[in-house]
């Protein structure tokens, strides 16, 4: 028994493709929703054609990106451009509480599956749309990718002041708006369940990055306070702050005048704290003091491995962390002890490790096991049968390419 899950009474009709929408429905699936993923017959979600591939060989059932994004979903192939395909989608919407899509704005309306059409068959439906710039406005139809949308959002603050701005790794820039979409959907559901009326939620990828707490939010106010652009000034100027070499790699540290005392103790120089040059916030805020301290800190770091430094940081309450690679992460003692990574079997790859849950419900029953990503159209017969479509018709639809 896995027990009740927050969304186990919710069906999600997932019309989304690529990364942002599938990340959203993956999370809703983790919380127990029945996610029905509609894919184009033959080719499926275009993410099936994106790397990394198992053994580096492309194939519909070999994309690690797709496998990661589509756990806990049922795959139904359906050509939404056909009349019967559209009817079946509307039937699915009638028995769902949520529809998620990330087509270019206007596409859903053109398919005859826009909010008004959905509301006609299901007045309480929550439709969540994720798009580059939102469903309205002068940029509505502009093109975007992870790189260009993050650039417009908050990339200007990421990186070194003497070099170009840096994007976040991989597909973070579209996963994140997908995560926002999951939050929006959860609130839309709360409202729809209270009022009995559905809602259309509009998530703009550009806006989610403009909103981000890290790169943007405080700096937008600070600019209005003092008229200065922050650019890529990091925290590295402050005393005891920056990325420094250690015995087996690099280690990131932060202190500043308010917290450096602990770091001074960590490196065994508590004697300095008695000295007037090192005992006031004003003195410790001076740039030359920060440089002087590096001369003490770096030799100490070079005698210790990342894990030794990390462990000392923990002991002294110093803020810092090792610059790891993904293989370090897999071997990390904390992630191992918590059994974070999950092994999921799949006909192509066999059992491989996936990232675990974002959040865990604390209770006696364990979290439900994740189901592997579906093969293309794996659940077409099952889902159409649930809708009451006769097996004979399913065969005919298959022959004519509708499913």
């Amino acid at each position: 028994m896995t027990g009740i899950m927050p969304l186990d009474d919710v069906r999600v009709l997932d019309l989304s493709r690529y990364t942002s929408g599938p990340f959203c429905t993956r999370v809703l699936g983790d919380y127990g929703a029945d996610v029905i993923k509609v894919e184009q017959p033959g080719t499926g979600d275009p993410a099936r054609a994106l790397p990394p591939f198992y053994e580096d060989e492309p194939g519909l059932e070999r994309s690690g990106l797709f496998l990661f994004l589509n756990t806990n979903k049922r795959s139904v192939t359906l050509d939404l451009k056909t009349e019967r395909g559209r009817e079946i989608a509307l039937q699915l919407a009638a028995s769902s509480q949520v529809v998620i899509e990330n087509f270019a704005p206007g596409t859903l309306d053109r398919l005859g599956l826009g909010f008004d059409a959905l509301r006609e068959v299901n007045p309480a439906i929550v439709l969540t749309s994720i798009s580059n710039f939102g469903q309205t406005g002068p940029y509505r139809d502009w093109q975007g990718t992870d790189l260009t949308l993050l650039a417009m959002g908050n990339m200007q603050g990421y990186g070194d002041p003497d070099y170009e701005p840096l994007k976040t790794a991989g597909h973070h820039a579209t996963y994140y708006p997908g995560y926002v979409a999951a939050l929006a959907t959860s609130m839309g559901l709360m409202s729809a369940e209270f009022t009995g009326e559905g809602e259309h939620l509009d998530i703009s990828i550009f806006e989610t990055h403009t909103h981000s707490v890290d790169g943007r939010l405080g700096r937008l106010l600070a600019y209005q306070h003092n008229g200065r652009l922050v650019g890529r000034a990091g925290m590295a100027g402050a005393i005891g702050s920056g990325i420094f070499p250690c015995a087996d790699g690099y280690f990131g540290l932060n202190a500043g005048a308010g917290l450096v005392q602990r770091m001074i103790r960590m490196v065994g120089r508590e004697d300095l704290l008695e000295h007037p040059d090192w005992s006031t916030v004003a003195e410790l805020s001076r740039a030359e003091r920060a440089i002087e301290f590096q001369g003490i800190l770096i030799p100490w770091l070079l005698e210790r491995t990342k894990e030794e430094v990390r462990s000392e940081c923990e002991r002294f309450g110093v803020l810092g962390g090792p610059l790891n690679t993904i293989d370090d992460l897999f071997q990390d003692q904390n992630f191992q002890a918590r059994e974070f990574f999950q092994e999921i079997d799949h006909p192509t790859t066999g059992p491989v490790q996936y990232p675990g849950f974002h959040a865990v419900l604390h209770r006696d029953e364990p979290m439900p096991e994740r189901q592997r990503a579906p093969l293309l159209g794996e659940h077409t017969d099952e889902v159409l049968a649930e809708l009451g479509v006769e097996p004979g018709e399913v065969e005919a639809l298959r022959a004519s390419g509708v499913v």
Partner: protein
Amino acid sequence: MTSPSSGNGRLPLEGIRIVDFTVVWAGPYGTMQLADWGAEIIRVESVHHFAPQTRGLIARPPDEFAENSANQGGGYPDDLLGDRPWNRGPYFNNHGRNKRSVTLHLGTPEGQAALDRLIENSDGLIENNLPPNIEKQGITWERVSAVNPQMVMLRVPAFGLEGPYRGYRTWGNHMEALLGHPVLRSYPQLSLDYAPMAVPSDAASGIGGALAFVMGLRQRRKTGEGLMIEAATAENFVPFLGDFIMDYSMNGRVHERLGNTHPTMAPHNVYPCWGTDRWIAIAVRSEDEWARLCKVMHQLHLEDDPRFATMESRHEHRDALDARIAEWTAIKDAYWVMERLQIEGVPAGVAMHERDALENRQLGARDFWRTISHPEAGTQRHVGPLWRTTGNNPGSARHAPRLGEDNEYVYKEVMGYSDEEYADFERAGHIGMDYDPSVA
């Protein structure tokens, strides 16, 4: 779509009261979303303790701090700290909007009794502190559920409530370094001491925490019982590296220093434009987009260069390609390049700085900004709610609470103390709008 500022109906979380022990950025960003959409968030603070990096880096910074950049703990209005710097910092005054602040000294029996009253009269409690520290203050599921079994409690530790790193204190950037993100995204051409120590995992933690809390509310409705949810910031963020996790677990491959490169696309980078620190991001997904980019950059005749004939060969020669494109962009206005390429349907975006965002016509047309006046920090435009709905959207926002601003309301109306009892709390040093002089 309806204009967001037009709506003033019932918001999804109206009637939900949350006790908020969040600190720094990630936790407060999560409760900001809940507050934006109608929850009553009561921040529990103390005049005897300053939570670092929440209402500024330290309570009473030296004057020169005011001019530091926002991420170095500065960015104060008019470069002045004012009498109460803790009410003037740019981060708190943004994510604190729509929340309330009460001061309470948990190190006393009457402070703990007051917290019990607050828990009795609330639906949820959210915290993102170092687990041993917050537990020492009596904030545990055992206590919270004993006082109010209907509570939804969300805990957001860095690495986990249990496990070897339970007591390992970090900021988001160190946590993210341990997960491998800075090494993945670092500059291909530079040593790792140039790795970006930025913290997208904080925003992700805020969103994940808010989502987990709403899920908890729905779970409570279904089961009739409260519950505790744990959303460790580190575990919340690892899935954002999902494709790298899969490449490692499927193929044993370890990526590093990818910068702005893409596994297949070229061009795919940011290019310098006319002016100081101005950049344009350009990404080409297909041969068709390449042809249209070449049309705009016709002076370069790149379409005739066999090295750039296919996506694969462009990717192979991407350094040479980037250098040619950069020659072209360097003498051009970033906005001209963006508008010109977007007309052709080529993905291009200016790396926008603060003023760009505030003046952006898309954000303006979508009514993105909210003007908020703060009694000690003046009037500014803030980012609006994170999404729009055809249902009820948040209307105007209340300014971030000054320390202890809502003491009377919370003690009397929420906890139900009388005027006399409130006066007792005042005499005992719980109530105040200034940190105790002993607080640094």
